[in-house]
């Protein structure tokens, strides 16, 4: 238990080992650890960034999708409108046409009827006159005949 020069020997050994540790052991370990820490931090950062960009992309995608949906529905609306317009136009046109046809047809019919009536009238009056002439030729005097003619003409 006596104190002797071992004391200084140990002091010197201690200093030497601290120096070795300081020069050769400590820095690479600390550097490696710091680097790993940095890499992990970078990785986390990158992951976060990727997450963010994914979210952004999702947002953009949603936006585009919505826009497309709106556009599509607008388009469909327009198309529907157009279609209904076309249909109604066609309907109107058809109705007009039909009316026109109807009216022309009725006009024609009227005309025909009138013509037929006129013809019929004239034919009938001729027939009547003929018949009456035939009858009157026998029984009526020329005076009476004239008289009758006048009467008939007035009646007609």
């Amino acid at each position, binding site marked *: 238990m006596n104190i002797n*020069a071992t004391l*200084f020997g140990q*002091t010197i050994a201690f200093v030497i080992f601290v120096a070795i540790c300081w020069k050769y052991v400590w820095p690479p370990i600390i550097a490696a650890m710091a680097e790993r820490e940095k890499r992990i931090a970078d990785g986390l950062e990158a992951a976060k960034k990727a997450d963010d960009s994914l979210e952004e992309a999702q947002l953009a995608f949603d936006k585009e999708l919505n826009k497309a949906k709106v556009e599509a529905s607008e388009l469909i609306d327009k198309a529907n409108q157009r279609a209904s317009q076309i249909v109604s136009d066609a309907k109107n046109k058809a109705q007009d046409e039909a009316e026109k046809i109807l009216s022309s047809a009725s006009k024609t019919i009227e005309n025909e009827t009138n013509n037929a009536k006129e013809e019929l009238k004239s034919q009938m009056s001729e027939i009547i006159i003929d018949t009456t002439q035939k009858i009157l030729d026998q029984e009526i005097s020329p005076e009476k005949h004239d008289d009758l003619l006048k009467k008939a003409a007035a009646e007609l």
Partner: protein
Amino acid sequence: MAKELTSSSYIQHHLTNLTCGKVDEGWTCDPHRVEEMGFWAFHVDSLGWSVFLGIVFIVLFRLGIPKLTTEAPSGLQNFVEMVVEFVNENVRSIFTSATNPLIGPIALTIMVWVFLMNLMDLVPVDYLPELAKGVGLEYFKVVPTTDPNITLGMALAVFILTIFYSIKVKGLKGFIGELTLHPFGKYMIPVNIVLEGVNFIAKPISLGLRLFGNLYAGEMVFILIALMMFFSSFAFGIMGIFLHVGWALFHILILALQAFIFMVLTVVYLAMAHETEDH
């Protein structure tokens, strides 16, 4: 030999270092001439083991390095990094105001080295001395930290570092001022010198003696347990084995704790040396 083997001589034998020193004829390791060597003698066993364990520390911590990757570490590297991180964490929690790149390596060296030296305590007390006896060395003490020279030597190194950094950080004037002007102001300088001086000197001595005392007591208990083998009763011998295991398990805690405390106190002293403001 069997005749002179009493408990007292057994213990004495275990507590005597292999001492080499200079006598009139030159260098010798003769245990009977230790008295002649005076101060300039070396405990070759303590020094040898401490240097060997220091090399073990360096090799152990260097070995992890060639393979140091920044990928997930494994095996030895994992252990090394764990220890370094632990030390670094402690240093950072104590060294809040100042920074010094040397503190980390000092703390790491102290903790691992002291722990390894303490760990030699767990080697059963007779193995290595008996081996040494086979080689022809009469005395051989294995655990370096049971030698006060070793612990006080390290404390001395810490003490010198403390003074060095005190002067470096505060300047010579500040350092002397801290020693002389402290508790009572400048009109009581002699009293201050005595008080602060005692405080100043007591730090390294208590630092070294604490480690030494703990390890010495532990070693002593191990030796006494080993002594039980020499009692005539067989039952005592069996009991000794259990006692040895129990004490060793408990002692592991003390070994690690003392290494850790030596480190923490060193860092605290060095941190105090870096503090510039008055307190």
